[in-house]
């Protein structure tokens, strides 16, 4: 083999980068057992849509609400016979999920997404 030193170093760097998650997770002791556990604090028995749909597609719903409010001026929807305001802060957060840290962030940190909504919209804060 020619230039073995350089080639082995190069190959090693490549293999280490390609398998980065394996040794990084092992080295930092990140357990693959960890699963996010978004806590639902209000026991209404229903959300604005089915749980299965919400888990996968809540961003579609929020986008839809946003468009309907901001562009079409509709403000309310009918959810299971109850009239609700299409509002991120007033409905999603204040009515049910005021524990943003233990709910939204629980999944988002895990999936490494950070929605920029809170640049403008208020998030509930605990008051002493």
């Amino acid at each position, binding site marked *: 083999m020619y230039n073995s030193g350089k080639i082995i170093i190069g190959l090693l760097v*490549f293999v280490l980068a390609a398998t980065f998650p394996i040794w990084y997770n092992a080295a930092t002791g990140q357990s*693959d057992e960890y699963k*996010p556990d978004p806590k639902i604090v209000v026991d209404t028995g229903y959300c604005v849509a089915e749980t299965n749909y919400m888990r*996968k597609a809540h961003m579609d719903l929020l986008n839809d609400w946003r468009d309907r409010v901001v562009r079409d001026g509709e403000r309310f929807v009918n959810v299971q016979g109850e009239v609700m305001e299409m509002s991120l802060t007033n409905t999603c957060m204040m009515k049910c999920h005021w524990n943003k840290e233990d709910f939204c962030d629980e999944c988002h940190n895990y999936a490494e997404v*950070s929605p920029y909504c809170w640049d403008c919209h208020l998030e509930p804060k605990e008051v002493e």
Partner: protein
Amino acid sequence: MGIFYGFVAVVALVLLVIFGVGALGLDTLFAVVIPYAAIALFLIGFAYRVFKWAKSPVPYKITTTCGQQKSLPWIKNNKLDCPHSTWAVIGRMALEVLFFRSLFRNTKSELKSGPKLVHGDEKYLWLGALAFHWSFLIVFARHYRFFTNWECSVMTLVNNLDSFFQIGLPMLYMTDLILVGAVTFLFLRRVLSPQLRYISLAADYFPLFLIFGIAASGILMRYFMRVDIVEIKNLAMGLVGFNPAVPEGLGIIFYIHLFLVSVLFAYFPFSKLMHMPGVFMSPTRNMANDNRARRHINPQNPEVKIHTYEEYEDEFRDVMKASGLPLDKEE
């Protein structure tokens, strides 16, 4: 024909997953066994081919040069196009790998009416290739979020720039559009130009279709057909922790994406995609053009047995002395 085989192969792969997971319920095969096998094949095959290349001798110094060689001090040496030192080689190599400098030099010759032969620049291949490879890299690197909990600030910055226009939710990544656009361009280039079509084989079309399929399924999953990202990350974390558990109901689009990616990885070492390590190992690129300063010894040179005059004299000293021949060394 090649185009047909390439297309049919990718369609068959997609149908295979739909049948395997959808009809036969082979989730573990497609979510665990095949990805592991593909990665193993990729790493072993990749290393095997690199070692095989490393074993072949380079008989001559065959640097391709496009500039003035270093010679007399008053003649200006073009360091990047005719590198003389290791650092210059690294500089040239970096520009080649990161910015495809040799594609930038691409020219074309056309027979125009007259008849006149016209030579000109052709930058589209360079632009298309650059767009394709960079967006592929960014999309690829973004996927590390499924396999670790490491928050990389560089990646966050890249993602923020990538979704700069904040279109829709989840926000549109520009690289997704660029990736699909560039693959389509690279494909059309082969199809529309008669010369290129003539030299294109199934092995050229297959990777293009495969990557198109991967990008299309990824884009469908992100923007149109919702999947449970949390469950997918659970699976991915299980895979890298060697403790995989296949979640229920992942959605066929995810299996298609994962299977096509597995095929890409498994296919990699056998294909022209090996140009990725290959560019680093090209003797025309990775050697300094310093023939006149440093001798390049052909490693294939057979070992020549030599018998110097000194040794000759030692051997025949007595006889030579006896017949009165002059000697360099008397004793």
